């Protein structure tokens, strides 16, 4: 695997199957997720394509909601209606369902922001020219997971005090008797250490894998576009289309799952310990 961190295109476009110039198939890999900085130096400050997409995505989300909700009307226009439907989906469909209306109301803005942010970052994957899911760079899911984690932890200890919060996180239950220390250890490990990690990695890995698959079929379509290979290329291209549709679905699902988990964490924090 050639790990050229400065590579911009995911593959060498001059290379085809059955050519005598000796080049081979270069599959996608980690190098596909590394970008030459648009500005600066990778050792210090720099600015690259995912960063640009992240900021651009933010502006798009803000722009969308700005246009829809800046001067909202009692009788909504089409645009406002669409935005309201999205807002209502997160509010009722996720937050109220998990945390409940009374406790959840306060967390609606955060969850709505996370949902649309994650979804937008995922959507970049199939936006022409951009064609890269920002969330397949671990930093972006990690930041979001960290925000949720900090809120979750501070809320837990604020609600239940230090001891109560600890009991809440470790699933303290007297009736367990002898196995209680073991359960508490596992629960502590699972809740406090593993959860934020899996929270971030779940999103990252899904988008990473999805993008890799798309790349694989795209590169293969191009690579096999020579001689008899054209037939295989066609199959591969059909897969590109199919996977793009599938990615569209996965992007929304992952945004949903990410927010759902965040809500479940917070619900655990505000809930009375069982």
């Amino acid at each position, binding site marked *: 695997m050639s790990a050229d961190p400065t590579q911009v295109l995911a593959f060498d476009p001059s290379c085809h199957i059955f050519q005598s110039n000796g080049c081979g198939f270069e599959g996608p890999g980690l190098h596909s997720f590394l970008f030459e900085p648009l500005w600066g130096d990778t050792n210090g400050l720099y600015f690259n394509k995912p960063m640009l997409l992240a900021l651009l995505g*933010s502006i798009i*989300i*803000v722009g969308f909601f700005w246009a829809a909700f*800046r001067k909202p009307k009692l009788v909504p226009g089409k645009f406002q209606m669409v935005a309201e439907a999205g*807002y209502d989906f997160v509010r009722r469909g996720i937050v109220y369902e998990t945390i409940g209306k009374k406790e959840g109301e306060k967390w609606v803005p955060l969850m709505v*922001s996370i949902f649309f*942010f994650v979804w937008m970052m995922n959507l970049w994957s199939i936006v022409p020219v951009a064609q890269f899911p920002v969330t397949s*760079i671990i930093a972006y899911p*990690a930041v979001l997971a960290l925000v949720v984690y900090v809120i979750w932890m501070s809320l837990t200890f604020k609600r239940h005090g230090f001891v109560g919060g600890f009991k809440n996180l470790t699933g303290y239950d007297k009736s367990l008797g002898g196995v209680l220390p073991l359960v508490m250890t596992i629960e502590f490990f699972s809740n406090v250490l593993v959860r934020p990690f899996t929270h971030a990695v779940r999103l990252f890995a899904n988008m990473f894998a999805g993008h890799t698959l798309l790349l694989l079929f795209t590169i293969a379509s191009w690579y096999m576009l020579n001689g008899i290979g054209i037939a295989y290329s066609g199959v591969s291209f059909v897969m590109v289309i199919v996977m793009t549709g599938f990615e569209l679905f996965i992007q929304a699902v992952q945004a949903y799952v990410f927010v759902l988990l965040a809500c479940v964490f917070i619900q655990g924090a505000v809930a009375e310990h069982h």
Partner: protein
Amino acid sequence: MVQLAAEGKENPLVPPWPELVIGLLAFVIVFGFLAKKLLPNINKVLDERREAIEGGIEKAEAAQTEAQSVLEQYKAQLAEARHEAARLRQEATEQGTALIQEMRAEGQRQREEIIAAGHAQIEADRKAAAHSLRQDVGKLATDLAGKLVGESLEDHARQSRTIDRFLGELEEKAEAVR
């Protein structure tokens, strides 16, 4: 894998800090706008809309209640009017009957009156005719008798007494025959 982990930049699970900062910044932009301005905006409108809808429903309910009461009122009034009309009709019928009865009685009375008057008139006429006849017959008879006996029987007192006596006899005869 060990090699990748050692290199850091190559490990996809180790986030470089500039990307963390940009990620956080991007998210804060979204969260800031949505949480501080746009979502409160839409929440206000959603609340207003809910109130408007609830208010509308209340208004509709009030209107329906009012319509119901007005309908009841109209129905009551209509029933009353019908009742009144029936009563009036009944009264008119009764009055008509009474009037007809009265008129019939009056007619009967007038008829009888007219008949009675007619009878009296006939009686009076008869009497006058009889009286006049008696005078005429007396005069004719006297004239005739005077011519026959050649002497004037113009002495009124005598003449009248004789005629009356004669006619009285005649009437008596007629009475006797009848």
